[in-house]
């Protein structure tokens, strides 16, 4: 916690583009900046198609962003040579959402976990084997299963395999792209707790992406809310829950069905209608088509990020 004010990862003005059908570009992520400090977990929340996964891939340089700067450990990743990038890669790793897709069906689990070590290539086969077995027991996998193929594992176990693969190089930054959203509640809790344990053990800094605000709230120190490729609000978790500012954030909070407060289901803050297509985002504020508090200004002018209290910024004209 003492390094708290030094950012480990800094994103400035990140833009991610895709080629659309007509040769036009879709901005999956447009102009996003934030920093993650050493030792903290930043949660990134947003609904499908808001660009959160594209952002994660841009950070991982798979491939890098169309424009903007990703600074990791004070190094601009875009400026690094292929060799330098290869050298720094083991220090930031990622866990993917769909474990079936993220594991090579033809490769045994042990070899999958060992692969990052093999590519860096400093260790002998035996050394790798011992490390992998150790890692497997750490993430709660029976090391007897070393030679099994991914299809012999359940969804939760596959996610453990992914975590083991990501952590074997002892990275500083772990990006989790919806690691629990395809899991059942009971297994989801297992994986979240495992991530927490690993975070403490490896002193990880995490970027945790999810569409589930409750999960993100549980795991993150700070939360960033995204909507259609833009950042809406960023604040410390507790503060976001207590006093969220952006109408979209309050809409998200109010839409979550909750076990313990079944009656509390405030309808006033709900947003209305469907998500606009990311190919043709609305002018001005992107949320305005669904915003219950929309003003005329929102149509013409894109809101800037306003800091309403220390560490709490909002992109909304209401806080001008």
């Amino acid at each position, binding site marked *: 916690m003492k390094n708290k004010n030094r950012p480990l990862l800094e994103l400035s003005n990140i833009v991610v583009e895709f080629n659309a059908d007509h040769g036009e570009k879709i901005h999956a992520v447009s102009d996003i900046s934030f920093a993650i400090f050493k030792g903290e977990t930043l949660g990134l929340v947003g609904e499908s198609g808001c660009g959160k996964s594209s952002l994660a891939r841009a950070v991982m340089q798979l491939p890098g962003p169309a424009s903007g700067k990703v600074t990791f450990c004070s190094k601009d990743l875009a400026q690094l040579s292929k060799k330098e990038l290869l050298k720094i890669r083991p220090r930031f790793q*990622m866990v993917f959402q769909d474990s079936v897709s993220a594991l090579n069906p033809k490769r045994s689990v042990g070899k999958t976990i060992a692969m990052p070590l093999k590519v860096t290539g400093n260790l002998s086969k035996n050394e790798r084997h011992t490390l992998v077995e150790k890692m497997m027991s750490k993430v709660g996998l029976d090391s007897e299963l070393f030679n099994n193929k991914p299809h012999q594992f359940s969804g939760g176990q596959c996610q453990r395999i992914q975590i083991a693969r990501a952590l074997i190089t002892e990275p500083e930054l772990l990006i989790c792209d919806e690691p629990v959203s395809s899991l059942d509640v009971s297994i989801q809790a297992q994986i979240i707790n495992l991530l927490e344990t690993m975070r403490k053990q490896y002193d990880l800094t995490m970027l945790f992406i999810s569409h589930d605000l409750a999960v993100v709230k549980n795991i993150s120190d700070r939360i960033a809310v995204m909507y259609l490729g833009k950042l809406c609000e960023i604040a410390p978790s507790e503060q976001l829950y207590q006093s969220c500012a952006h109408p979209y954030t309050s809409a998200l909070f109010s839409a979550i069905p909750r076990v313990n407060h079944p009656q509390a289901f405030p309808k006033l803050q709900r947003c209305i209608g469907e998500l606009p297509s990311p190919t043709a985002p609305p002018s001005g504020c992107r949320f305005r088509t669904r915003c219950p508090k929309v003003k005329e200004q929102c149509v013409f002018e894109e809101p800037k990020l306003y800091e309403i209290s220390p560490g709490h910024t909002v992109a909304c004209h209401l806080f001008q």
Partner: protein
Amino acid sequence: MDNSPSIFEKLGITFWLCLMWIVLVVLLALFADLLPLPGADVMDWDHPAAPPGTVGTLQSLIASDANPTEIVYFFGTDTMGRDILTRLIYGARVSLAVGLITPLIGLFFGGILGMLAGFYKGRVETIIMAVMDSILAFPGLVLLLAITFFLGPDLKNIIISLGFLTIPSFARIARANTLTYSQRDFIQASRMVGQNDLSIIIHEIIPNIFTPMLIYALLVVSYMIVAEGSLSFLGLGVPSPTPSWGGMIAEGKEVLEETTHVSLFPALIMFLTVLSFNLIGDSLRNLLDARGGQL
């Protein structure tokens, strides 16, 4: 996992019967010269188009031989008195050579091209697939006829031109398979740890697409046997006197009204061989699908 049936049981009895048939045909074709058979072009003018089981003497074949040997024409003789069994066994050489070599040509070139197209996409894919589509656009048999017509019909030319024609379909399958795998996150994961393209293709893509490609190749084997048969049937296959199954069927067709066995046996053998290859491919594909279903 442990109490599940073994691969032997899973493939079923038909698979093993078919495999036995193929092995038998291959062995006969390989060791034809060692078998006690008259030559493929030895004619017994005493017994033209003789029904199966007719007994002939080899004296009429080799005049200088003092000791005439008796020979049983198990499958009868053709219109020129040649032993059908012998010709079938020698004809198997042509069918098998074409059937087994051509898919390898397609598998190798088509596989590589398709993989490159599916992996790199963009312009590489556009160019490769445009060329492949153009080849596919040639009406196959017409092109084959043209090639054998211009190059002259011999076995090597037939194999090369048939092999060339199979490249596009292999490329398509390789590309489709590569595309599905290259979109999956494990490719991203291996980039994440710094594997380069070549290593990704070799270690991540090939192991996954190899089995479906091989199974497709088995299917192509039977296509190629039929294609070679068609060429020979039209008289554009390997030049006589080399026997081929298609040519034998064509000969038999001329005497169909009098006797059926001349074309019946080659047709039957060809049918069984093609069916066996199909069934083997089908069983293997089912096995693979069942495995895929476990994912």
